[in-house]
């Protein structure tokens, strides 16, 4: 088996949680592999991250350069193509950076790419067998990937239990001298912070959250009436914001808000991993959906098979009658 590398993403001098997960994924590819962490960035933040990651990885390669201060995937790709050995297997978190980086990286390395992996079964004869999901998690597939010429493997954040042992005692090697030309046709300008909306859904203990099942803008009122009866706030999944029926600040998910309520009412929400990624703190989840196969029923505590357009008004009335 070729060498295995893990690309570490970080922000404000702190490694992302995925750093602790990628090493577990790597060991599922090859339990005996020495897994090398690659950390790119600049200045003291980079040094902090590299040191911290050495507690998890036996070997850390650190690449510092002003051009890497913000993780521009185009520049990072150039670096990785220069420094990775032929046939390397590299694991990358499947987040908005990994989605930007990895497909093109696999082309430039002339290796295979497998995206959004949720589990790994192992390698046999140069073939890596993994599990992916399709159709928003409604079905899963086993996927075979020819890794004989290397591979870029994007791993879904949260899919592997983190290695929190902090016992690797690894060493950091400063490879900044190897950084070559990073010029590219895309230049990072700035990050525009999300707008603050009229309601802060992150502060509410109870959320009545609506998804596609609400079907029409005027039906949002049904959810609002239930929320009023419960003393809750209305939040939503991505399609509702795409349709402009609610403000972006009401969206729960990796591309929206991260919420920590006590009770989460998922109404007509299928439960994609991007949506569930925005729900932390193990709330009590009630799923109401007319599609009994919706993935939300796998993660909810209580499930109700019903059309929310019929069910929510009846529930509201019953609560108001208490």
């Amino acid at each position, binding site marked *: 088996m070729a060498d295995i590398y893990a690309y570490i993403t970080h922000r404000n001098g702190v490694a992302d949680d995925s750093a602790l997960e990628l090493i577990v994924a790597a060991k599922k590819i090859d339990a005996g592999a020495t897994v090398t962490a690659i950390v790119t960035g600049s200045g003291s933040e980079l040094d902090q991250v590299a040191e911290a990651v050495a507690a998890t990885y036996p070997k850390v390669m650190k690449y510092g350069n002003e051009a890497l201060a913000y993780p521009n995937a185009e520049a990072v790709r150039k670096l990785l193509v220069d420094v990775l050995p032929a046939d390397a297997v590299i694991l990358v978190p499947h987040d908005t950076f990994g989605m930007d980086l990895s497909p093109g990286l696999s082309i430039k390395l002339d290796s295979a790419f497998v995206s959004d992996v949720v589990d790994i079964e192992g390698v046999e004869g140069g073939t890596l067998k993994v599990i992916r999901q399709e159709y928003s998690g409604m079905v899963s*597939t086993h996927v075979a990937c020819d890794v004989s010429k290397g591979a870029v493997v994007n791993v879904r954040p949260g899919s592997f239990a983190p290695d929190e042992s902090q016992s690797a005692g690894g060493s950091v090697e400063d490879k900044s001298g190897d950084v070559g030309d990073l010029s590219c046709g895309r230049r990072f300008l700035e990050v525009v912070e999300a707008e603050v909306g009229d309601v802060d859904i992150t502060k509410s203990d*109870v959320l009545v959250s609506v998804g596609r099942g609400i079907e029409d803008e005027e039906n949002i009122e049904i959810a609002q009436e239930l929320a009023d009866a419960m003393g809750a706030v209305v939040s939503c999944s991505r399609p509702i914001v795409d349709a402009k029926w609610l403000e972006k600040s009401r969206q729960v998910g990796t591309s929206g808000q991260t919420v920590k309520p006590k009770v989460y009412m998922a109404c007509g929400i299928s439960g994609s991993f991007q949506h569930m990624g925005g729900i932390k703190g193990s709330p009590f989840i009630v799923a109401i959906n007319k599609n009994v196969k919706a993935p939300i029923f796998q993660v909810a505590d*209580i499930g109700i098979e019903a059309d929310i357009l019929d069910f929510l008004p009846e529930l509201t009335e019953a609560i108001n009658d208490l």
Partner: protein
Amino acid sequence: MEILVCVKRVPDTAENEIEVNGSGTDIERDDLVYSVNEWDNYAVEEAIQIRDKVGGSVTVVTVGDDEAEEVLRREMAMGADNGILLTDDAFEGSDGKGTATLLKAAVEKGKYDLILTGAQADDGAGQVGGMLAAMLDYPYASLVNKIEVDGDKLKVGREIEGGNQEMNEISLPCVLSIQTGINEPRYVGIRGIRKVASVDIPELSAGDLGVDAATVGEAGAKVKRLDYFVPELGEGAEMLEGSTEEIIAKLIEHLKAKGGLK
């Protein structure tokens, strides 16, 4: 600006329950309603809006069989000027790299300033745009939710974690993958589709594209689906049963116990 938008025909998850077939070799495709991939629809709308602002043309391209032609016509009814169908038995079973190889060949047969794809598809891996850009040596940005034309450059916003937006300057020609929500795709009526029903859509085969058939399709694929299955449910939700009144009574007890009612 000459714009190429890569689109795909997929089962419509809003219209279908996706189930695994009896032998686990595929999803149940009988009676599935297909439509254009949702993300691609936003990409086509964005291309039309850019063309209407700065001039030029919009071409839509897809890899598929005769049925894939209907999504090209749908996008032409929206306002795309031209369609191209890449079709050959040798293309079947292509992985992401195979599809990107075909699209690259199609790009090189024309002259495009901007190439758009959807950021992902429900049955895909969000990979073709990034691969195509790397093959063409064009700059790339994914998950784009804002485009401003500024001479021979674009200012593009990428959707990143937490609802934040990463702004970049990118030089043309380039490839962008488009995130949903960037615009509001226009409605296409049956009359619009009739209008383009007889427009000629050129078909290009492996030979026309000058693509070695061994590098695409099943033969060239490094990544292959082995089967489909429904994942073990783990614990799963406790399903409340009974009449609506009974279900509501049980639910209210749960909500009271968990602090869900004020």
